[in-house]
């Protein structure tokens, strides 16, 4: 048997719910006022200091290749290098060209008129800034190298940043790292 509520009880319920809403609303208002005045939660909310922003572009120095390469520039010994045409291939028999599937001539990167310098899309590039030449194609690697995710750092973590240029690690004619046996035997993990 189901009982339907009378009109009187309906009104009673309505009044009760209204009262409750008013009570909750008032108490919430007071709590907010108290918290604003510094009461209530005792502790102040922790705020992280603003994170310092990285300087852009990053400050670093590139190790100079011209100081490392002993026989640079070639004109140190070969004074007549510009006179002989098409003699480069004979002069460099050991160079193997294995750079991806790229079909390139010497003159794609080397400035034949000015041996010892390079050209990146007709722009002159010195031996010390090979990143400007390699970065024409390998732009994402150049970006990571500038930022710090690629390349070899030569100083310590809190010293002046000096990084090696591309051609210090990669042979530009045959850029794949060589295969070799590991330099030390691995010890099995302890049990």
């Amino acid at each position, binding site marked *: 048997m189901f009982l339907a509520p009378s009109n009187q009880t309906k009104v009673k319920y309505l009044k009760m719910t209204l009262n409750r809403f008013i009570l909750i609303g008032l108490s919430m208002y007071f709590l907010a006022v108290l918290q604003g005045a510094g009461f209530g939660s005792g502790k102040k909310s922790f705020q992280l200091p603003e994170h310092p922003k990285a300087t852009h572009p990053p400050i670093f120095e590139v190790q100079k290749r011209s100081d490392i390469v002993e026989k640079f520039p070639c004109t140190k010994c070969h004074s007549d290098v510009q006179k002989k045409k098409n003699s480069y291939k004979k002069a460099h028999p050991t160079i193997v060209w294995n750079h991806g599937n790229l079909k390139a001539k010497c003159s794609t990167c080397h400035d034949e008129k000015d041996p010892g310098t390079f050209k990146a899309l007709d722009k002159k590039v010195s031996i010390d800034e090979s990143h400007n030449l390699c970065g024409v194609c390998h732009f994402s690697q150049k970006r990571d190298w500038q930022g710090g995710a690629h390349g*070899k750092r030569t100083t310590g973590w809190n010293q002046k940043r000096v990084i090696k240029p591309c051609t210090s690690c990669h042979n530009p004619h045959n850029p794949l790292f060589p*295969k070799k046996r590991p330099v*030390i035997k691995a010890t099995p993990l302890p049990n």
Partner: protein
Amino acid sequence: MIQIMEKAKGFFKSSINQITNSSPDSSRRSLLKKAISSVGILGSGGLVSCFNKDGTDKTPGDKNFSSYLKKNFRLMTEKEKISSIEKLRTNFYKKYGADVHISSDDAPENTLFGYAFNISKCKGYRDCVKACVEENNQDRESDMQYIKIFEIDKKSNSLSLGGADSQYSHEVPAGNSFYMGTQCFQCENPPCVAVCPVGATWKEKDGITVIDYDWCIGCRYCQAACPYWARRFNWSEPKIEKEEINKDQHYLGNRLRKKGVMEKCTYCVQRTRKGKNPACMDACPTGARIFGNLLDPDSEISYILKNKKVFRLKEDLGTEPKFWYFMD
């Protein structure tokens, strides 16, 4: 015993030192016996509760803490630090006839060390492993190594190290595989520290977890607790040729260990606290390893965390390792 004295657990240790007048050279087990007896003197109830509570907020000025121990503890003075290092130097001279430099450099200000490892650059040459062994004076007889390089088949389509080969000796890089190095990840929430029953291992302010070899009792709880296989145990007295010993040492790092103590990678604390890079990073010929200060927004490690896709090993354990892997 140098930096540990700044830690709450250190108070307990120096209290033992004072009560029993034991030298740092006395054997660990006799020290432990003395420790147990001195606990008896002090009243074990108080000490046990000291250990059970989180000791991080215990400072020398903490009145409650000092009232437990009735001024039977004190901090190690600068003089005592120096004398304990002098003792180590003398021992070294007696044994090897040469002088050794043991530093006790504290963690640098505003520094939290982090490491990143490029899994698309590592070729598995193990130059880092070799450099690490030479730098950190590890036992040559058992060929102890902190770093492991895992060879993972690209076709396996997973990063599970269970099926990976860490003992490879063939020419690398091998056809269709990539290489992933593991070492101590210097967790922000290190489980190895939590389980140490004597407080011989703790996390330094620069985020490096270190061991005091004079306090370690060799229970190997930490080795069991570490989810990254980072800790190593000296089953015998470590043996290194005299000429091969790295004499540039740190009290909490690569100073010579003894039989029956744990040791681990400290990101080369003797180098990094002088501003250098860890030996593994300097030795890497491919530039796959990057080390730096996480709090410095200009550091390379910050660049990597901001700009590259990074992941950590066993992230779900909540250990918060400070060692990230990334790809080109």
